[in-house]
Each structure stands twice: as structure tokens, then as C-alpha cells.
């Protein structure tokens, strides 16, 4: 749908230029080329408006993010934890251990993004429907009115004349003829069942012949079909003023070329008589006019153009070159613009996604908006929270060397694994315990692929977590373990044995060795205290960029765990 909207807009804009150009040079061209060719050359543009088949322009980076009023509920994440609460939950029950992550800053700033094209598509479709509805109602009402005032033609002479002209033009099938007091001008309508309506006036036979011939030429050329196509094109491009100008010019060309067809190979005398027939109608009209008329600019001038054209005996060329020019312009514009866009893409150096990709590190001393490429904070355990944002990202791969990474997709729209808590943690209602499968959540390498319409990259929550350090904590009979939480001196409930406390702290509890407690250690082995996270981002054009996060875990003078991290391009 996004591609379609871009294509439609591009097509509309590009063809507007062709329409304006063609409309501007039409007076010049009509001196040289036959109106028939000018008329049918417009059909190429009409077809181009209806079938936007040309290679589309890809316009990357037009993303409008609209903050929505509705905020998604986040059942996954618990509220920020205080160290004291951590102790309480650790001591009272083991199964509550998992959701106790330190606060999730993104939850508060949740937005739903509505893509620009979704809004545009909704407005466009509504416009098309309303336009067509109004047109249908009008057509129906007009037909009803005409039908009401129509009477069968009973004059045998007129009917014979009609048959005569019909045979002359070689029109097969039935064409009905009516007298209609409602219309001020002879007209032809009906797509499947063509009807000719004459104003209820006694028109001299000589003049009537011309008039019938004019209407039957419309009939033979299937001008009503042409007008249907024009209507569809206008409905699809209702927002484009150039299309209405086009409709006006086409209507004019339609009548001009119809006159020309009636008068093909005619001598000046016949032309004069044809002219007289139209004048005769106008004169009668003046006498019998019943309707109040509104003055529309162009009516009079259009008529003058008509008469001039009728009386113009100069030989006109077939406008094959005009038709070709329109074909080339209509089809070519799309190809040219596609070439331009391809050219632009080629000019972009590989890795241009670089500019768009931002890696931010959560720092508990800052508010989320101020998260930066550097973080240094005291935490209850060795861990790092970070975010990767950008535009038109197709894939993100995160790997680390020593420890583990995982992701939680707060948008809950992408790969299920990255948000579905049930996937890596099951809850047994009978026993009231959770079973946690760390191997399902933690990995040394994760890979996220995104849907084309996705834009909420910044809402995905990435974690580096020091699982190996917990193993280290339990080594040598928990000898490296010094305590819990941000302040390692917080005391555990008194009824716990020392061993229980140690095991609990290191994750040795009812959930099995997999669970992670909040720990502080007396020191960190060289190999585990440092890690390097590699983030490889690939955009939709196949460009990729790699960023690194260096993480270091250390203790401060109060034996608190300090996490230091910075982003490296």
C-alpha cells in the first residue's frame, strides 16, 4: 500500500506536467494536426493516469511519526525496583524473581506510530468513493430527468433519415432516437444502449441530417466509453487540479474532432451548411429556452473555436508524432524518474545507514531522553540496557564475546521470540512456580528481521547480561560473593542459613540454577570483566553498518557493581 501511494502521487505529479504542457500547446498543434489525433493522444495520458504501471520511485526516509494518544499497556515489564524490594522478593518467594528487572524507561514514552501513507491512503480512498458516489447519483438523476421528458420519435421521415445516416456510417445495432424537451442541445448517451436525444424542435431536414450524423459519429467512436475512462482517471486523481483541466480540454477536443469526422473530405459549401445547422439550433434555442442559464467562462469562446474549426478547410496532418510524443512522455517519465532514483541510490556510499543508526545506552543516573553513547552507573548486578534506533532497517544482528544478549520487542509486532514471555518462562498455576529457560532467551548472537512497514525500532529493548559472572559467583563455594543489590550490605532475613543466602544470591534457588539473583562480587576475572557487543544493522537497500559497545564491570570503593560502557563506531 505504501508503494502504491508513492506510485500514485509520483504518477499524478509527473503526468500533471505532461497535461499542462499538452494543454498549453494544443492551440498551436491544432493549426497543424488533425483534432482526431489530438483527441486520441489524450487517451494515452488518461490510460497512464489509470494504470500507474511504470517503475516506481522509492523514496526512503519519509517517515512521519505521530504520537498517539493511546498508550500500549506493557504487561511484560514490572515497575522500577528498589533494592529493598528486591530483598523482600528474594526472601519471600523464589518464583517472583524473573520480572524483577530494574525499571524500564521506554514504557513511559511509548508511542504508536501511524505511517504517513496510512493516513494518505485513507484520505485518498475516501475521496475516490465520495467522488464516484456523487458522479453516480448525478448521472442517475440526469438520466431520470431526460427519460421523463423523452418521447419516441413518431415522424417517419426523421426515422428514415436516422436509418439512412446510420447505414452511411456503417453503425450496426440499435440506436434509439428520442425527442426530449428537457435538453437544450442534441445529445448522445448510453454505454451499452446508445440513445440520441433531440431537443423537441422542428429542425429542417437538411440540418437534422448533420445533427444526426454528428451524434452517430459519437456513437460509432464510442465516446461514452472514452468519457468513462476519463471519469475513472479523474476519480483516482481527484486531488489533482490538472486532471480537471484535462477533462475540459478533452471535452472540447471530443466535439471538435467529431465535427471534423462529420465533415471529412467536405467542400466549403457543406461546411457552411453544417455551420448553419448549429447556428440554427442556437437560434431556436434562443427562442424556446426555458432554463435559467448560468454563465460559465469558456462557453462562448469554445463555440467560436468550434465554428472556426468547422470552417477551416486547411488540410491537417495526422498527428502520429503528437501521439508518439505523448506515449513517450507518459511512459518515459516514470522510467526517467526510476533512473534518477536508481542514480541517487548509486551515489550513496555504502553504509550510508550510518547516519540514521543511533545506539543509546541506558544510564540509571539519567532520564531516558538523555541516554547517550556513554554510560557509567552503579547497578545491582552486571548488566547493560541499550537501544538501537534508525530508519528503514531490515535486520539487526547483535553478538557479544563473553556474555549473553537478548531483546524484548515492546511493540509486540515483530518476531514473536523477542517479546513472548511465555516462550522462555512458563508458569505453573498449581505449584505457583515459574520455570525459566534461559537458553531460550539468552544467546551470544541474536538476529532480528523487521517487516517493511515497521518503524518502532527504538522501542525494542536490548540487554547484555552477565550470565557467566553468575557462574563465577558460585565457584569456590561462593567465595567471591559479597552481597546483594546496589548496596551489598543489605541484610537477608535472619531465618536463612548462610548457604541459602549465598545460593539464592547467585541464582541457586527454586527456579534452578538458571535464575539470576542480584549480586556483588569481590572481583572479576579479567576475561569476564570486559565484553564487546557488536551491532550490525542492515537497511532495505542492503547497506550495512556495524557499531560496537564496549562494556566493563568493576567494583567501586563500597564494593558496589559499576557498569561502564561506551559506543564505538
Amino acid at each position, binding site marked *: 500500500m505504501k508503494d502504491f501511494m508513492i506510485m500514485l502521487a509520483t504518477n499524478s505529479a509527473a503526468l500533471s506536467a505532461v497535461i499542462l504542457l499538452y494543454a498549453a500547446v494544443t492551440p498551436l498543434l491544432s493549426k497543424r494536426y488533425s483534432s482526431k489525433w489530438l483527441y486520441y493522444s489524450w487517451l494515452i495520458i488518461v490510460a497512464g493516469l489509470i494504470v500507474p504501471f511504470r517503475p516506481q520511485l522509492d523514496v526512503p526516509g519519509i517517515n512521519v511519526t505521530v504520537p498517539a494518544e493511546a498508550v500500549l499497556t506493557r504487561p511484560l515489564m514490572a515497575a522500577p525496583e528498589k533494592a529493598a524490594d528486591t530483598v523482600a522478593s528474594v526472601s519471600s518467594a523464589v518464583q517472583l524473581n524473573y520480572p524483577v528487572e530494574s525499571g524500564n524507561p521506554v514504557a513511559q514514552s511509548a508511542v504508536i506510530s501511524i505511517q504517513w501513507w496510512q493516513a494518505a491512503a485513507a484520505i485518498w480512498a475516501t475521496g475516490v468513493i465520495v467522488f464516484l458516489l456523487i458522479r453516480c447519483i448525478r448521472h442517475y438523476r440526469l438520466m431520470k430527468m431526460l427519460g421523463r*421528458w423523452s418521447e419516441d420519435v413518431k415522424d417517419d421521415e426523421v426515422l428514415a433519415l436516422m436509418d439512412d445516416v446510420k447505414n452511411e456510417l456503417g453503425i450496426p445495432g440499435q440506436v434509439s432516437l428520442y425527442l426530449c424537451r428537457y435538453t*437544450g442541445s442534441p445529445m448522445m448517451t448510453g454505454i451499452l444502449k446508445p440513445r440520441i436525444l433531440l431537443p423537441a424542435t422542428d429542425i429542417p431536414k437538411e440540418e437534422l441530417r448533420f445533427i444526426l450524423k454528428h451524434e452517430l459519429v459519437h456513437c460509432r467512436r464510442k465516446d461514452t466509453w472514452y468519457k468513462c475512462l476519463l471519469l475513472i482517471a479523474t476519480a483516482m486523481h481527484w486531488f489533482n487540479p490538472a486532471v480537471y483541466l484535462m477533462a475540459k480540454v478533452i471535452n472540447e477536443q471530443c466535439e471538435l474532432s467529431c465535427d471534423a469526422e462529420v465533415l471529412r473530405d467536405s467542400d466549403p459549401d457543406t461546411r457552411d451548411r453544417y455551420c448553419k445547422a448549429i447556428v440554427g439550433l442556437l437560434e431556436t434555442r434562443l427562442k424556446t429556452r426555458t432554463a435559467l442559464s448560468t454563465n460559465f467562462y469558456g*462557453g462562448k469562446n469554445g463555440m467560436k473555436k468550434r465554428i472556426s474549426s468547422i470552417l477551416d478547410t486547411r488540410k491537417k496532418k495526422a498527428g502520429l508524432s503528437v501521439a508518439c510524443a505523448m506515449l513517450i512522455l507518459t511512459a518515459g517519465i516514470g522510467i526517467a524518474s526510476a533512473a534518477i532514483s536508481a542514480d541517487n541510490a548509486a551515489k550513496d556510499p555504502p553504509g550510508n545507514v550510518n547516519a540514521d543508526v543511533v545506539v543509546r545506552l541506558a544510564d540509571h543516573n539519567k532520564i531516558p531522553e538523555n541516554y547517550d553513547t556513554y554510560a557509567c552507573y552503579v547497578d545491582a548486578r552486571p548488566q547493560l540496557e541499550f537501544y538501537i534506533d534508525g530508519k528503514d532497517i531490515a535486520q539487526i544482528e547483535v553478538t557479544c564475546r563473553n556474555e549473553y544478549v537478548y531483546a524484548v520487542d515492546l511493540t509486540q509486532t515483530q518476531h514473536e521470540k523477542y517479546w513472548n514471555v511465555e516462550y522462555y518462562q512458563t508458569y505453573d498455576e498449581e505449584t505457583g512456580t515459574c520455570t525459566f529457560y534461559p537458553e531460550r532467551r539468552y544467546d551470544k548472537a541474536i538476529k532480528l528481521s523487521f517487516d517493511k512497514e515497521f518503524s518502532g525500532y527504538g522501542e525494542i529493548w536490548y540487554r547484555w547480561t552477565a550470565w557467566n559472572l553468575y557462574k563465577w559467583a558460585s565457584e569456590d563455594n561462593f567465595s567471591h560473593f559479597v552481597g546483594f543489590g546496589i548496596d551489598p550490605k543489605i541484610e537477608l532475613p535472619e531465618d536463612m542459613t548462610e548457604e541459602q543466602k549465598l545460593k539464592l544470591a547467585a541464582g541457586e534457588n527454586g527456579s534452578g540454577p538458571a535464575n539470576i539473583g542480584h549480586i556483588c562480587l569481590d572481583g572479576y576475572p579479567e576475561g569476564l570483566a570486559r565484553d564487546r557487543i557488536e551491532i550490525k544493522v542492515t537497511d532495505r537497500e542492503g547497506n550495512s553498518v556495524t557499531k560496537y559497545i564496549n562494556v566493563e564491570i568493576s567494583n567501586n570503593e563500597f564494593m558496589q557493581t559499576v557498569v561502564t560502557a561506551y559506543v564505538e563506531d
Partner: protein
Amino acid sequence: MREMKRLPDAEFEVMKIVWQNEPPVTTGIVMEQLGKKKEWKAQTVVSLMLRLVERGFLRTEKAGRERLYFPEVSREEYLKFETGNFIKQYHNNSLLNLVNTLYDDDALTDGDINELLQWIKERRG
């Protein structure tokens, strides 16, 4: 006369017969020219005509055993009303109508036509 309203189709059909005939018109004439074609009962035609009397389109007189009807609104008057009404509502943007008119009648004022005729005379002269 009362304010004119658009006639429903059936009543309009009756009025068309009335206009086609020399007044006065009887239900018999209408029945003969229309009722058979439409397969209407005599009572239907009578009630339609009485409704037209109510609307002020017909006037009725009793002449012996027969009831005579006279048109109160001429066809031209009514046509003027319908077309005027329609144009007021629908004229805008007639460009996209699915009809081919020989000329755009509504786009020409009487003044325009006079000027055009003059112009053509000069051109051809």
C-alpha cells in the same frame, strides 16, 4: 399559485397526457391513452388526477355526469421549473457527465448566443 413541487413519476405521466390534449380532459381520455399501457385501474387514474388537483396542477369542473379537468400549469412552466431546479443543483462540473452534447447549452447565456450569431454572420459574410 402555490409553490411548485417536483411531481412523482406517475402523476407526471398523467400530466403529460393532459398537456398533449386539448383541454378539457376527462379521466376517460387519460385512461384510454395511458391507463391501458400502464395497466392502471380507472380508480388509480381518478385518484392521481385528484391529487394533481390538490397540488394545483389541475382544475376540475363538473359538467353533467362527467368531470372535466383543465391544466393550471403549462408544460413550459413546469419544464422551466424542473430544469431550473436541476441545473441549480447539478450544473457544476458538467464536464464529467457521461453524455455527449452537441454544445454546452448551459454554458451559453442568451447574450452569448446573440454575440455568437453576430460573429458567425461576420465570419461567413
